């Protein structure tokens, strides 16, 4: 359904998955089973969101994908050199101003200075932080810090973008604005997105597909294709079909929560 609606050529059935979980399980050394037989894949031009109760292992998925943690079963294949990871908190370096923070990842990858500056300028422009290059994190609001954090990942133009509940701590208006900006980026950059959240509205608004995860052990219990094109606007949140889909996901989530 989603493929018909978006109608973009990126999502042909034969497009290779950029991120692929195949029967992935994760048992921590203390015996906690965080993930059990999780299988799904994300292609370029797909934005998959995982919703689930707190502590269900959603974030563990991202940590496995980025190799911060090693899965104990199954396989996770991804091009690890092309991952952008947006953390729960902005993780900016307090001693660097916006410009230098945005340059950081490129700097760690030894991108030559001229190119680094050009890419950082572009990323700063895209997230709407132009004019704030000289500000230090302590001078920024929570939303602006998150923008800077986004820009820092954008600089490397990752093919796979992992978001670990990045907007959970922001007020609703800022959150909705940033939802739109990530959606814009997704459209222009065409990366494969994997987004973790516990907000159903956010999940539906952002994604092409929503996965519902159960708790302890984390399993994918339901999958919903989101039938709206990518040109979404704020008002979509108040349309009946949007609410209906949110309702269905909520039901699945409640089922998973038992």
């Amino acid at each position, binding site marked *: 359904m989603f493929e018909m609606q978006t109608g973009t050529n990126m999502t042909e059935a034969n497009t290779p998955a950029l991120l692929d979980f195949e029967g992935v399980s994760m048992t921590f050394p203390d015996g906690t089973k965080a993930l059990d037989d999780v299988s799904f894949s994300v292609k370029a031009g797909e934005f998959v969101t995982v919703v689930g109760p707190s502590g269900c292992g959603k974030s563990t998925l991202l940590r496995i994908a*980025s*190799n*911060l943690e090693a899965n104990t079963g199954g396989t996770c294949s991804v091009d690890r050199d092309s*991952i952008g*990871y947006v*953390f*729960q*908190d902005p*993780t900016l*370096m*307090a*001693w*660097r*101003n916006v410009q230098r923070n945005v340059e*950081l*990842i490129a*700097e*760690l*990858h030894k991108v030559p200075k001229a190119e680094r500056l050009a890419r950082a300028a572009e990323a700063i*422009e*895209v*997230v*709407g*932080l*132009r*004019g*704030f290059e000289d*500000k*230090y*994190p*302590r*001078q*920024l*609001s929570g*939303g*602006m810090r998150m*923008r800077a954090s986004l820009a820092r990942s954008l600089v490397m133009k990752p093919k796979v973008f992992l978001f670990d509940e990045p907007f959970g701590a922001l007020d609703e208006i800022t959150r909705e*604005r940033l939802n*739109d*900006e990530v959606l*814009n*980026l997704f459209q222009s950059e065409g990366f494969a997105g994997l987004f973790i959240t516990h907000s159903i509205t956010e999940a539906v608004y952002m994604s092409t597909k929503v996965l519902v995860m159960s708790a302890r052990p984390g399993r994918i219990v339901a999958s919903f294709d989101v039938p709206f094109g990518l*040109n979404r*606007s*704020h008002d979509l949140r108040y349309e009946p079909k949007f609410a209906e889909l949110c309702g269905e996901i909520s039901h699945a989530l409640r089922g998973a929560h038992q």
Partner: protein
Amino acid sequence: MSSIDTPTKATAVSPDEIVHEQRDGFKISDYIGPFITFALFISVWYLLSDVVLPQQKRFLLPTPHKVVQDGFMVWHTGERRGLQPILVSLWDSAKIALIGLAITILIGMSLAVIMSSRRWLERATWPFLVAVQSAPILALTPLIRALIDGTQTQRLLVVVLISIFPIVSNTLFGLLSAENSQHELFTLQGASRWVRLTKLQFPAALPNIFVGFRISAGLAVIGAVVGDFYFRQGGVVGIGAQIDVYRSRLWGAELITAILLASALGLVVFLFFGWLSRIAIGKWHTTNRGR
């Protein structure tokens, strides 16, 4: 799409989202405070000199104006009296304190870097650092004299022993203060241990490192004065040795003058590192007083 969300607009973020902060400007209360404490200090001094001390012991603590007259206003009389010999000794000790402090910073910070790398190294080193910090230098002097040649080297060693602990503990605390998620960010980029140290841990540690500098700077001056007591040779002597001479000859005014100048040296070094800290990290580091 609503216009505020257009990401290509530089004004996507309204300027009032910027967190405005109050920079403290010139405040008269900032200057009245130190003036009041100074006035109190002088008053207590007069009280001790003229009232509390019994008549026959007042030579031990001459009044402030007497100290200024006999200590500060006399340039050079007799063999070791007057301001000039005191200043010469002070300079001699200041050199020892500063060179010693530089050595301390170098050794202390290296030690902290090594300790920060492995937990077992940290655990293996702490007890010795605490021992060094609490060991009475007096008890160690014969050993130092037996093991090390040269008065200057012996004096430097005393400075290092006395001032190293705060540098190590503060630097180590700072190096280990970077957040876990920041470390993970570096891990994700495959950062080497060196890159992690120089681009994450060290800058994160700077506020603590400067606290260590300020404490150790004061201790280095104390260390130099203490070193002077035990390790001296002919010719120019340090301020500690000079103080010892005045003490033994009961030259009150000169004794107080020398003590005040030695304290002033400690204060100058302390203020210097405070200033350096503001230059280096003032832009991004915040101090909160809960107002």
